[in-house]
């Protein structure tokens, strides 16, 4: 299904009622957001308005759009960090507002855009914090926690940095350490806010490959905000393109990424090639 921005011409075809896979079977959505009106306490107007958004189970969904289009805000609502003015967000059919905080944290891992930690804790310490929602107040770490942390550290590829203090790491290594923390949380759903921004190319790939691996091996549902549409198109199963706080289009990259979209949403003139694989060749910025 795809809810279209009201001002979007019907050129993208009729609104799809349900998302279907290649065989036409209906795909279950892990997260569904409906009739969202999101605003910050300081703002009078809605920052994001969205009729419906689906994050399909077991797939990677990327939210893309220019700066200020509301993608991070939308992600905050999906992760219960921002209470919608109106509308609902459901996880497995249950309103996320009705979850206990720790219950939600066992279902859904969230990595914010900017993370700070005391510089003197080690990568391993950080990863162990991911076990927080699984431990009671008086419970100490058990074998399950050790196993989850070992797996997470291995999957994030930071085994060699285990005992290094977070303050000593490069930006890319730091991000991988934080990824290890959310992986240790061992959740079915993972929401990531611009995990590759400010990283060098090598670490961008490392982060995305880790997430992809997690999705394939453990069937984890992923929603990720990316600002590089080319990267998103290569990496994600679905794209959600946002413009000025509204959903512009929604669907698999091949359907969503068009020259028209790049002009409308990103304000760039670009050529899009679909064969042999989806490729975006930006040319120049369009005047506003």
């Amino acid at each position: 299904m795809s809810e279209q921005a009201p001002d979007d011409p019907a050129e993208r075809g009729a609104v799809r009622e349900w998302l279907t896979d290649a065989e036409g079977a209906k795909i279950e959505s892990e997260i569904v957001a409906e009739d969202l009106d999101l605003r910050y306490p300081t703002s009078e107007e809605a920052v994001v308005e969205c009729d419906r958004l689906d994050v399909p189970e077991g797939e990677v969904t990327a939210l893309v759009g220019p700066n200020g289009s509301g993608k991070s805000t939308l992600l905050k609502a999906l992760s219960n960090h921002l209470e919608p003015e109106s509308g609902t967000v459901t996880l497995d059919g249950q309103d996320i507002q009705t979850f206990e905080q720790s219950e939600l944290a066992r279902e859904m891992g969230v990595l914010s855009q900017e993370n700070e930690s005391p510089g003197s804790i080690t990568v391993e310490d950080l990863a162990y914090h991911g076990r927080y929602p699984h431990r009671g107040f008086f419970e100490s770490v058990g074998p399950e926690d050790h196993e989850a942390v070992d797996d997470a550290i291995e999957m994030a590829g930071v085994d060699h940095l285990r005992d290094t203090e977070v303050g000593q790491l490069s930006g890319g290594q730091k991000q991988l350490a934080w990824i290890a923390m959310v992986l240790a949380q061992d959740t079915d759903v993972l929401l990531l806010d611009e995990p590759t921004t400010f990283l060098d190319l090598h670490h961008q790939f490392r982060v995305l490959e880790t997430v992809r691996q997690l999705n394939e091996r453990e069937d984890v549902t992923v929603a990720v905000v990316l600002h590089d549409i080319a990267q998103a198109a290569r990496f994600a199963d679905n794209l959600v393109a946002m413009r000025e706080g509204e959903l512009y289009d929604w669907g698999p990259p091949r359907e969503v990424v068009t020259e028209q979209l790049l002009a409308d949403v990103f304000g760039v003139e670009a050529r899009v090639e679909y064969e042999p694989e989806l490729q975006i060749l930006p040319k120049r910025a369009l005047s506003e």
Partner: protein
Amino acid sequence: MAGSHSIDSSTEQRHSRSWATPRLAGFCLAAAAITLLAGLIQVSFGSYSMTITEAWQSVFDPSILFDAAVWNAFLLGGELPEMANTRLIVWNIRLPRVLVAVLTGATLGVSGAIFQAVTRNELASPYILGVSSGAGLAVLLTLVVFSGLAPFLPLVAAAGGTIAFALVYAIAWKGGTSPVRLVLAGVIVGTVFQSLQTGVFFFADDLGVVQSAIAWTTGSLTGTDWEQVRLAILPAAASIVLALLGARQLNVLLLGERTAQSLGMRVERVRFLLSGVAILAASTAIAVAGIVGFVGLIVPHVVRNVVGGDYRRLMVGSIFAGPALMVVADVGARLGMSFLPGFGPIQVPVGVVTGLIGGPYFLYLMRRQQQMGEI
């Protein structure tokens, strides 16, 4: 957490993940040794002269250490059995002052450590959220205006601090709080209460009252005895245990509010409860020693520099380092002036000494560290 640590040490060994490092153990031992040494100096000297051997023999006198009647007198306020003069001076006058210093040091250290995590600011102190100005105002009002309440001065002071803290929280609250809002609200309440304090001073017509008020607002251990120990020991123990239990929560809180929430913490609730523990600790110290500055600020700092930022270590370290600083400072406050020519045995408030230690320490830090402020 702290208590459960020994239980799972076998599984932790596989990962060599014990937080209790040799460095922490060494630090705590050193701090304990300093506390003991300064305490022994404190009991050995004073206007009633005795030899060091006499004094130390009194402290470790088994006939007192293992006498239930004596402890009943000290801890429960019963009748004190007869004892020799030196014993009496050491046990009934000098030693309780050392113990009060130990309790104040530990509670202030713990309180400062918590507040630094809650506000995510290593320059925060137990008094940052209005506690000192609230307590100070309450003391002044009691001494100058409501003199009938004077017997309850310690409790009034603690209550004043707690009320100021509640006020700060109410001001900072706007659908939730944040470290910055809390600190700003603390400044607001502190400024107003400070002005009121100064105003109340003008209504004091007795020099004795003014001196007593100054002793309270700078913090002083002069004249403390077993009654203060009895008053402080239970709340001090409770707040220390709660602080140790909260260390893991503080660690997670330090990852930032959003991360803490994503990890399933009810941030507002935890922050409020932990602040409450810190207020309990600070109030305990205020009730017996007045507003001793700098201890709650420096202690977590020193400990962090030695054992690192993990709050399980930091908390344990603060419990040992606080008493060391406080007892040493009180030796200076009680005996320091007698070494200066022309003064004789005058005692100064211990808060004066902690300030004299604290200022240069921060100057040293400022010169040495690139960044200060955020943890």
